């Protein structure tokens, strides 16, 4: 029986603080200090879009050339004036997955009932495996992709939703790369002829 794991203590404060200017005062800032009890601060955001153009509010390190997906942090809301009106912020990811084991696999044989595959540990901590799967383990949208040579990912771990509900999970996801384009095919055939010519391939 799966048990709910104990939740870590979260910083206090409302989930979305953009409209609560009162929360963004110096005393509410969340920082390490020589004080023994730090004060809580605003919560973690995925950065609203407007902050990706030029400097983020309060930030003194970001530049247009930055490739950091900039995170909201306490300093962004540390100014006395109210924050700009942001477009709707990207939703915080509420499902957390604690991965216990992760493989990449290649399908070797496939039928309508299932498939065999070679698996290699993405963390390189365990030996390669050969496994046989029933097709039901693959989502219906992906089943057409299960063919010899198809690559997939298999993750085992615990999935936890925003309420803390925990569930042991096995996720198989087929790798999707767009099919060969006309241009790719033409280039491959051209390069193939060139290669054979260069090698004197009889």
């Amino acid at each position, binding site marked *: 029986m799966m048990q709910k794991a104990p939740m870590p203590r979260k910083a206090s404060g409302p989930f979305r603080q953009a409209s609560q200017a009162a929360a963004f005062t110096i005393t509410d800032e969340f920082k390490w200090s020589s004080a023994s009890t730090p004060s809580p601060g605003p919560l973690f955001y995925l950065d609203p879009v407007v902050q990706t153009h030029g400097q983020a509010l309060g930030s003194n390190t970001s530049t247009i050339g930055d490739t950091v997906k900039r995170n909201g942090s306490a300093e962004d809301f540390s100014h006395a004036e109210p924050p700009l009106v942001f477009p709707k912020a990207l939703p915080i990811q509420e499902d*957390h997955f604690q991965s216990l084991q992760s493989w990449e696999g290649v399908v070797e044989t496939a039928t309508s009932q299932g498939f065999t595959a070679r698996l290699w540990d993405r963390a390189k901590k365990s030996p390669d495996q050969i496994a046989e799967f029933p097709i039901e383990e693959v989502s219906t949208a992906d089943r057409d992709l299960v063919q010899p040579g198809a690559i997939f990912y298999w993750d085992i771990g615990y999935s936890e939703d925003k309420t803390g509900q925990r569930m042991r999970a096995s996720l198989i996801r087929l790798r999707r790369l767009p099919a060969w384009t006309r241009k790719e095919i033409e280039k491959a055939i051209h390069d193939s002829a060139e290669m054979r010519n260069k090698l004197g391939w009889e």
Partner: protein
Amino acid sequence: MADSDIKLESASIVFLGSFNPKIFHPVWFASENMVSKQEAESAEISFIHPELSSFSMSKIQYEITRDRFVIQTAYTPSFAVMKDLVLGTFGLLHYTPVHSMGLNHEFHFLLDSEETWHRFGRKVAPKEIWTDILEKPGTRKLIVEGVRTDQRKGYVRIEIAPSVQVHPGVFIAVNDHFQVAEPESNAGCQEMLGVLIKEWDLFLDSSKQSALRLLERK
């Protein structure tokens, strides 16, 4: 510190260059078989606009402006899928002008006590030199940058901050920044895809190891 101390983890891939946001639509991704039709139909769309596209599909968020393509997720099984989406997208749009790529990996670690939390904060940014300059000095955010060791253009940055998500916790973000060797050529996109293929898995592992090692030094 161990993997089990990671309470939240996210990753993103950022391309800088010149993009046309309005072509990036869930329907387009499904038409190219990069996502299933069902995933596209259940996408949550915020904007599809010539200046900005913003939507999420299957726990992955997409945000594209004229000069930035960002794809991000906090769902670890989707890290590899995210890489494939970038490979697929820019494999098709290989003519897109791209001059930089950033790989980002972020963690919120839960520490065992506030004392440990303070001790780490003092270690990464000693407070002694601030004592008669600021009252109650505290670290808001620390960013340290290092040079690349792989002969490529770019840098590596690590940001450390108190976590605003878990307490007592530390937020660590690793940014691996790559720049195209010859920005004036139009091969930047292909070059960055080649780097992504080689580096993504290594980056995810090495950035986690860097974060864990930093915390070992608390």
